[in-house]
């Protein structure tokens, strides 16, 4: 299990407690969606009963804001009702 985890991108295994079967890892990722996908990958590993994120540090994030496509950038443009709403 520890080996499998170490092989995943951005994952470091830090602590393990064999008696309770718990492992503490850190995960680094570029974007929020990568963080979510990373957790899903861990949950999908065989023999993993539970995987939850406990501690989230983003002090040093250069970009707090997610990238938004240019046409949505101006506040006025949010008035554009996407076509699918009208069908």
């Amino acid at each position, binding site marked *: 299990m520890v080996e499998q985890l170490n092989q995943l991108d951005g994952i470091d295994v830090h602590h393990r407690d064999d008696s309770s079967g718990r492992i503490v890892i850190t995960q680094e990722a570029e974007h929020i969606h990568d963080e979510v996908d990373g957790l899903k990958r861990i949950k999908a590993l065989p023999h993993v009963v539970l995987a*939850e*994120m*406990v501690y989230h540090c983003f002090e040093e994030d250069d970009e707090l804001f997610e990238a*938004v*496509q240019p046409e949505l950038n101006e506040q006025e443009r949010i008035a554009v009702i996407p076509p*699918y*709403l009208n069908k």
Partner: protein
Amino acid sequence: MEITRREFIKTSAAAATAAAVGMPLSGTVQAAAKEAEADWQWDKGVCRFCGTGCGIMIATKDGRIVATKGDPDAPVNRGLNCIKGYFNGKIQYGKDRLTQPLMRMSNGKFDKQGKFVPVSWDQAFDEMEKQFRKAYAEKGPAGVAVFGSGQYTIPEGYAAAKLMKAGFRSNNIDPNARHCMASAVVGFIQTFGIDEPSGNYDDIEYTDTVITWGANMAECHPILWSRVSARRLSNDNVRVVNLTTANNQTSDIADTEIIFKPGTDLAIWNYIAREIVKRDAVNHDYVSKHCVFATGPYDIGYGMRGTDKYAFPAENDTQAKELKVKLDKWEAIAQRKKEGEVVEQKHRDKPVAHWLISFDDFKKAVEPYTLDFVAELSRGNPGEELASHKEKLKELADLYIDQNRKVVSYWTMGFNQHYRGSWVNEQAYMVHLLLGKQAMPGNGAFSLTGQPSACGTAREVGTFAHRLPADLVVTNPKHRARAEEIWKLPHNTLNPKVGSHIVKIMRDLEDGQVKFAWVQVNNPFQATANANHWIKAAREMDNFIVVSDPYPTISAKVADLILPTAMIFEKWGLYGNAERRTQAWREQVPPPGEARTDVWQILEFSKRFRLRDVWGEKPVAGLKEEGYADGTLPDVLAEAEKMGYSPDNTLYEVLFANAVNKKVKWPDPVAKGHDNHTARALGEGWFPEKALFNEYRKFGVGHMHDLAEFDVYYRDDVRGLKWPVVDGKETEWRFNAKYDPYVKTGDFEFYGPALKALPSGDLDKPTSNEKTSLAGKAKIFFRPYAAPPEQPDENYDLWLSTGRVLEHWHTGTMTQRVPELHRAMPTAQIFMHPEDADARGIKRNDIVVVESRRGMVKAVVETQGRNRPPKNYTFVPFFDEAVFINKVALDVTCPMSKETDYKKCAVKVYKA
């Protein structure tokens, strides 16, 4: 960032995590962790998301949130977070965060067909006031509405409810919690006479048996599920059974999975009840001392409109069932009638009426629910052998009945979002009460709450069309009098006529009865079923819709005015979770730009109106109440003047910034250096959130809903308290003499006061007018199986259910800030059985059209996902704006609770 700093942070994070979950670490590691966080300030908070109510710690530095972690001292989650809770610190930093009010204008004036243009707060309130006055003058209190929320903080919900009910005298405030917990509330009030669960989360660690019904806890209450998993894995005797309509992740930990057909939960409960009776396993001592038997009418419709005037032509066949139902062969047996009988739905307007029956009648009623009958009716997976399904049902009954087993039943939306949601909630209590397995550690039916404060705010504060705080209701004169006393209102200020529930507010917008609506802390134009109707109403009818939100949601896009709103850690607040735990947090960082809290917006708006505008005579169509002239709310201005008010007083002065509240000063030592931008923006040196909480508290103290004082929730050693909090002590199990100070006699007392005097009757109707008192007792209801109103047929041949998935909260407004809506491909998937896909020439990852009588959307097919439906059944989550599944969903509701059944309608699926 340099390598050493990054490594340092990782080490620190790992150390904090290990400490949070109680793993032993060396002193050096712990010291390193402390150093990395040296200039951070940690403060306790509550997760923004689900009804579990996990505690989190928030770290701030230089006016920014820099980290969050699960709170190791929180009894709910003991340091864990789920993936949503993990993102609590980031949700306010999406780039399309609204920072200015925006109004549709052309040529410098409001124009409903105009484009959104930034305006000042004053301009926004000017137009709001103008439009409100117009709607109010034309339609009276019934012409204005507030879409409220189970995600309101307690002060927000209280301010909104007080302004609407005491100020504008309108009961048209109803929360999205109507879509979530209304059926559960009806179940509680009908059964116990008082709202909210008797137990708490510690039941998990006491119980031997966890039965989940229509609740995908693994995805929707993950931290509670982690506690259940831990219990199961560390104890071989514990059993977990998952009753569900589609295989999901909750089944992975379950010992047994029972797949049942939509709506047949009604029959399965009755099978269990019949087994209890047949095996003579009724706990006669408990039942005779603490319970009575009851039943009600079956012909109550499905909560649809009584007319097809507004229906799209394709909807007519479903719509017709509202007035007349032709019983199928299952219903005939279940309801002791004849197959093919056409039953007029005569009790649509009085569905809640009920009466006492004898135990003999109860036995007679459950008699048809044999294993053979129920198994054949309920088998949900055509691929499973009937014998196997029967075996599982029998095992389920065994588990409930086993005298040596403690049992907890958990449910959420499978039971609540149900055309007979109130019935199936009552049935859960039926079984637990028959067995005497209720209101004690490890034993009890426990209604899980979806939203973070559906309990603490929507239900307890009463932001509903029929409610007032602390379980009071607008229809009860004694309750109104009590509210008028606490709120210092003249007699008969309050409107005794129940207002429009949330789906009805939408219907009222559609037929022009409501002309001003304010949306607060929710996204109703995405979240309400049969959305095509409501979007059209918002954009095309003559009305004015205001949306307060931090982000541009679908509701914002179809509105006329958008107000930028502060998010959770940008304000002071309190939430109440599913186990009655009220928890509090301080403002951590200021809101961006001109965003302001909902409390500030409500208070500022209230400054625009004077008593003379609202407390004169007002028309309310259909109002018929003793002490009121028909159709009219009286002029109370004369009495107001006797009380010391002037008709020129503003609602702000009367309802909010009154003498008592202004004595609650800001700054306050409880802040410990934290700011309060609401207090500063109001600029009058008083602490609105605390003052409002103090006033609200009066309703509950001594009335079975006691909350502690405001400052207590902010103490460093407190992680919330489960009410009633009496003499500083919280209540773990209610109605149980060992734990509940309100129990006066016996070992159990169901002291809830509502609906505790009933006439008696037989299984079909009351037979005498004389009412018997049921003080201290709970009701065991008989409710029959009834079929879902819209089922798959030749034209729309698949079931569609909707719901949540783990990583997305509700309509994705907080956890989905990337504009997927403008991508070519939608992301929300339709989960379907591979054979159903094959049969339609569809492959995994194809884009398909999902179409019902009401509308259509496109989605991506998933046949191998974490939700594995049986054949004939599909599931689509509702978070994705680009897969707007509520255009397809059906606005049938439980007629008693008015909660929409999002789980069952018929669709066809074909390649796009």
